[in-house]
């Protein structure tokens, strides 16, 4: 009864106060009251332990509490229920003042909040507390007030300020609120409070914020971009519009970069190096941005990948064909791996090769890259122009890592053939030394597995000059002894020779001609006579006109031979040895490839790729149908695409053509009565 009176007094007293004073009064009384209650509680410990416990256990009445709880119940009943409106209004006012930038006594709010938490008494179990009072009387109104406050503020602010400024504001506001919870609110509020703030501050303005994205990208404002990412990441699907604009921005940047090269180079062939470097610089720029501003978030990485895939495969340089990029990339590799004065240092090279792999990852037509790469690798190896075995091996293992063993198995075998050939050369030389008739011809060869090398047999016959035929026979025997049953095809069109001149009287030193085998075949004839007609040369070398004429052409141009009468290419044209031959250099390279040849070769390579793809697609269809037996048309198309994706992106019309072919060849047939279903014909 005393308690009730006391509380009534406090209540009446409290009505005199408002706002902050009220809070001060309330807190003061609360502290006094609870302290007293604790003391009383200790005094009546005995009753707590026995009488109260018994009463509760026997469950006679439910308004029996231990003493401390009892005091709280009374406080709530006789004071709190009357004053809470004013108290809470005062608290909220105080918080608003703080939000407006005034400093306030946060301790007051903290203790009021604590009292609310303490008053949360569980009806059924007096020893446990819950947050019912806190949530009902404080949290609800507080959240509502917050929402209204920020709604007004944010709408006003965003209409008056730029997006980056608004984002700064929102960011600080969110941090403030998080701080507030930590400072004087109960931690359970954090989740609701922050989510309300996010909704009001971010979600409601998400569209406006996202609209500012493009401009920030254009200006490359990394900090603002990062801020935007952090804000929009807070709300569900908030990043989606950003990802979409990011993707299209990167794609445009890539296309633009490529277009600029196209303009610089005009109609001339695009330089692989500039091309690849342009692609790389765009990728690097935005990859860095993703890492720094977007924390390397997976969605943005995916957008970046998608955009890169787009502009790497479809841009101005590629025009309509997606196979241009892989070709240029392979050519770039060739320039890197070829012996050249401009070759980068070893560890630098490794970096460049790694960046090549970055572009490679985006290339759709990996089979095109493989074709060109293996052609150029073969050329490097056969001509001995590869800069370093280690670099070759390292590049191949990178490709293997990216595309699997099968993709590089032929390339790998090419390297193996090279080292085997080296060994064989040594062996063969040893054997030669045991023979008495020392030959004046140095000889070396490469034995290359026909299956792994992209080389074709010579298109012309060739009769080996007497001077070297002995060596030829000896090696044939040597090889057959070692590997009986294997057939050696001599690829003379790829072979070369060095010839020393002894016929030039004018010079003290003799010249060394680096020539193709065919040129050697021609020049060695002049050991027997000094003048031949074209017809004679043809019958002696047995070369077809297509091989003989270009070989002669270079010799004429270099004035090693002289065309004395008739038209070049005429049967009766006469070619004489030039005894007045002069040149500044001692070693003269006459083994030159024609520019036109290169173009033809590129076209041919593209053609063989087309053929290969047809077979790959047909094989895939048959393989799939063999395991599935019956399959719907669309499912089959999809499966073919998935299976071949790692090599190239098959086009639906091309797959359909292959299906047509297989239907005709009766590998598959249309299922009875269902025209969009195929079944496998065993």
């Amino acid at each position, binding site marked *: 009864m005393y308690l009730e009176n006391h509380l009534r007094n406090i209540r009446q007293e409290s009505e005199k106060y408002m706002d902050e004073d009220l809070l001060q009064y309330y807190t003061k009384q609360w502290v006094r009251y609870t302290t007293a209650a604790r003391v009383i509680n200790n005094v009546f410990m005995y009753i707590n332990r026995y009488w109260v416990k018994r009463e509760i256990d026997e469950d006679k009445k439910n308004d029996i509490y231990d003493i401390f709880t009892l005091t709280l119940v009374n406080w709530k009943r006789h004071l709190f229920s009357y004053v809470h409106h004013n108290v809470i209004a005062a608290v909220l006012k105080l918080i608003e003042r703080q939000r407006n930038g005034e400093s306030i006594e946060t301790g007051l709010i903290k203790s009021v909040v604590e009292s609310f938490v303490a008053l949360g008494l569980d009806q059924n179990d007096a020893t446990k507390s819950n947050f019912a009072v806190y949530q009902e009387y404080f949290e609800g109104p507080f959240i509502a007030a917050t929402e209204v406050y920020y709604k007004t503020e944010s709408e006003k602010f965003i209409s008056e300020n730029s997006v980056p400024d608004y984002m700064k504001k929102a960011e600080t506001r969110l941090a403030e609120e998080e701080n507030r919870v930590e400072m004087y609110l109960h931690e359970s509020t954090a989740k609701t409070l922050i989510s309300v703030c996010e909704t009001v501050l971010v979600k409601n303005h998400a569209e406006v914020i996202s609209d500012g994205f493009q401009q920030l990208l254009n200006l490359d404002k990394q900090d603002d971009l990062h801020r935007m990412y952090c804000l929009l990441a807070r709300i569900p699907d908030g990043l989606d519009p950003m990802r979409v604009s990011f993707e299209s921005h990167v794609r445009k940047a890539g296309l633009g970069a490529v277009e600029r090269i196209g303009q610089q180079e005009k109609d001339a062939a695009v330089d692989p190096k500039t091309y690849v470097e342009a692609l790389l610089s765009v990728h690097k720029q935005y990859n860095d941005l993703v890492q720094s501003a977007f924390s390397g978030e997976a969605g943005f990485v995916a957008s970046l990948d998608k955009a890169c895939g787009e502009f790497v495969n479809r841009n101005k340089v590629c025009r309509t064909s997606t196979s241009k990029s892989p070709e240029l990339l392979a050519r770039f590799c060739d320039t890197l791996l070829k012996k050249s004065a401009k070759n980068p240092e070893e560890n630098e090279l490794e970096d460049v090769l790694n960046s090549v792999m970055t572009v490679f990852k985006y290339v759709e037509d990996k089979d095109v890259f493989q074709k060109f790469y293996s052609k150029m690798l073969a050329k490097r190896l056969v001509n001995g122009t590869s800069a370093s075995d280690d670099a070759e091996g390292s590049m191949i293992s990178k490709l293997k890592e990216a595309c699997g063993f099968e993709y590089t198995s032929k390339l790998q075998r090419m390297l193996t053939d090279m080292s085997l050939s080296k060994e064989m050369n040594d062996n063969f030389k040893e054997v030669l030394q045991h023979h008495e008739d020392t030959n004046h011809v140095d000889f070396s060869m490469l034995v290359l597995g026909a299956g792994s090398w992209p080389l074709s047999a010579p298109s012309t016959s060739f009769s080996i000059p007497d001077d070297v035929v002995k060596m030829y026979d000896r090696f044939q025997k040597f090889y057959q002894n070692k590997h009986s049953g294997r057939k050696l095809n001599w690829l003379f069109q790829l072979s070369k020779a060095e010839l020393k001149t002894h016929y030039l009287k004018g010079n003290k030193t003799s010249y060394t001609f680096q020539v193709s085998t065919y040129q050697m075949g021609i020049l060695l004839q002049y050991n027997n006579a000094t003048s031949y007609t074209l017809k004679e040369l043809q019958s002696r070398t047995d070369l077809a006109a297509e091989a003989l004429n270009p070989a002669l052409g270079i010799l004429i141009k270099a004035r090693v031979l002289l065309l004395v009468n008739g038209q070049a290419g005429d049967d009766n044209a006469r070619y004489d040895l030039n005894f007045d031959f002069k040149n500044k250099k001692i070693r003269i390279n006459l083994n030159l490839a024609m520019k036109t040849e290169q173009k033809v070769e590129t076209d041919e390579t593209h053609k063989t790729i087309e053929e290969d793809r047809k077979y790959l697609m047909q094989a895939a269809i048959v393989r799939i149908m063999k395991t599935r037996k019956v399959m719907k*048309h*669309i499912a089959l*198309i999809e499966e073919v695409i998935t299976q071949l994706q790692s090599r190239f992106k098959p086009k639906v019309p091309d797959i*359909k053509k292959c299906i*047509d072919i297989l*239907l005709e060849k009766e590998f598959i047939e249309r299922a009875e009565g269902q025209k969009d279903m195929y079944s496998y014909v065993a």
Partner: protein
Amino acid sequence: MPPKRKASMTNNKTKKPKTIPKKKSTVAVATHLYEEWFQGYADNDTDLGITPEGMQRFLTDMGANLESIDSILVAWKLSLGRMGYISKQEWMEAMENWNVQSTDQFKSMLPIWQAELANDEVFRQLYLYTFAYAKTTGQKSMDVDIALVLWDLLFETRCAHIPKFVEFIRDVRPVKVINKDQWSSLLDFIKTIPYNLEGYDSTLSWPVLFDDYAHWRKQKDL
């Protein structure tokens, strides 16, 4: 296993004599009749039986219109294997099968057969049969010029697609031969795709030839 097979073989042997004696006189007479009838059309300079010239006479006698679907219809009904030819065996089997003994009898059957074609399924069977009948013997595909003529014959005015399709093949010459799949898909195509090609999807299972046709139509805005 072996004994069983032997039993069945003897069965076969005994079966034949059993049936023949019963109808001996009629069958013998019929066989004789058929043979005589056959000789009337057969080209005796060759051993091919009835050749295109005899075939033409036979069809005219039957009252068939040579410039129409009739000639194929008759061939289908008689289960002929090669366009323009009837071997003796084919003749005998066909006559026995239909049990006809005179030209007039045949003549009366033709309208019935023609009427049957109104049934889509019957027409479909005839259409599918035509491919095997008309393709060059020993090859998998049909010469495109023959196919063009046949489509004209078979569909006449049945379908608006056909004249356009024929025009496409004639003008563009996308193929030299028509394969079985293209042949049989055409029937599905004209059945399921409206003349304005609405809803045609070139990613579906239509042979590429039809994709090309649709593309051509679109390009020419026909």
